[in-house]
């Protein structure tokens, strides 16, 4: 492996890890207090889970004598990340913003764009010849919660603000969370292909969105309280 490849791989390992670790510590510090909404704690846990997945992958790169194909707990870090985001958006926000009325039906349909795009993003992984079938199946396990997560985040980004201004306050968070979901999927695809430039770019974008999302969530929750 060339020196340039190694540098890019290290950037792709360490930049998202630093961002998720920072976001996790920030969340522990700011969101795990009495009276704070559970959705803030969920997104903090999402960051922690992703950080653990990245640490596992890093340790594997540093210590493993063999390349493990297919499922590893590093993927569970990603799966847990999306599951915690779903817990935040579907579990806690959706019941507030979507009352099930017909008025919101168009929004629900438009929001389907996100899962369709996310599903299409799987194609480069699924069609890749060099990728082991075990890995392809494992990647599907990451894609499934990601598809659900981006649907709810996009839906909450475009849903009309009917009452209390909550949706407006939390909109920046939802936009960033949608973008973050796609950035993570692109990151995974770039890892499969090991193309230097996309790997570095998606990692940096992911890191920026991670930190931005935490700040947006904090700001949104504060505005909503006011």
């Amino acid at each position: 492996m060339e020196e340039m490849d190694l540098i890019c791989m290290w950037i792709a390992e360490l930049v998202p890890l630093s961002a998720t670790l920072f976001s996790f510590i920030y969340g522990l510090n700011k969101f795990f207090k009495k009276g704070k909404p559970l959705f803030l704690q969920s997104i903090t846990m999402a960051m922690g889970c992703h950080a653990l997945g990245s640490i596992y992958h890093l340790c594997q790169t540093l210590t493993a004598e063999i390349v493990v194909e297919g499922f590893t707990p590093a993927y569970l870090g990603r799966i847990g990340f999306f599951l915690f985001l779903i817990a935040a958006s579907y579990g806690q926000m959706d019941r507030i913003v979507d009352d099930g009325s017909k008025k919101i039906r168009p929004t629900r349909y438009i929001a389907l764009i996100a899962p369709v795009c996310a599903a299409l993003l799987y194609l480069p992984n699924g069609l890749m010849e060099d990728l082991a079938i075990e890995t392809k199946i494992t990647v599907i396990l990451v894609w499934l919660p990601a598809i659900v997560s981006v649907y709810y985040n996009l839906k909450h980004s475009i849903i009309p603000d009917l009452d209390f201004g909550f949706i407006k306050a939390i909109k920046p968070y939802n936009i960033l969370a949608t973008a973050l979901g796609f950035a993570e999927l692109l990151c995974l695809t770039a890892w499969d292909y090991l193309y230097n430039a996309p790997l570095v770019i998606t990692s940096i974008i992911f890191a920026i969105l991670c930190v931005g999302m935490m700040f947006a969530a904090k700001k949104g929750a504060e505005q909503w309280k006011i």
Partner: protein
Amino acid sequence: MENLIYILFVSVFVPIMLMACLIESKARQPIVFVLIGIYISVFAAEINGLLRNVLPLSTYEVTTIVAPITEELLKAVPILIYATVIGAKKEKLFTASMAVGIGFAVLENAYYLLNDASFNMFDAIIRAFGAGLMHGMCTLLVGVGISFVKKKSKIFVVGTFALLSTAITYHGIYNMLIQSKFEVIGFLLPISTYIPFAVWRIKNQLSKKNSNLS
């Protein structure tokens, strides 16, 4: 020695069980969960052994990929039952989950000790502070997390899976580091998680006490 784990199980489980029958009910609860942890340890050893024979994986892969999954899933079962069927409160779940993890680690540590003739005091300390705490912390994470997610039925399943994913990944990192050249980092990992958590917990209890007094 054949069936070593069963011999250990009987010699550890039975005296504690007999003691649990005699003590008052408040003190019995954590002991019962320690016993459950010990029982699960035997069960997990059997399942891991079975999977090692069935799956085409090396010992390294079994310890870093398969064992964290089976062990964390099995340890979570009694906690899930306690939280959902019995409807235990946060504080009780906290004690129960830590007790299951520690009970699990007790038998696992004893098994390693008897299986390895070169086991010395240093190894014992590593296992006690490392694996012992790691098992406790992983189950604690799931237990405390469940106490949050069980409040809302919509996030219960998703939240529980997410918590299990976190615990499995943490367990996998520990297992990987402890058998690599970075074993010191592996040894320090559970302690570095335990200390901030213990500080937070003590602070929390003190502030509760103070608010009750005032």
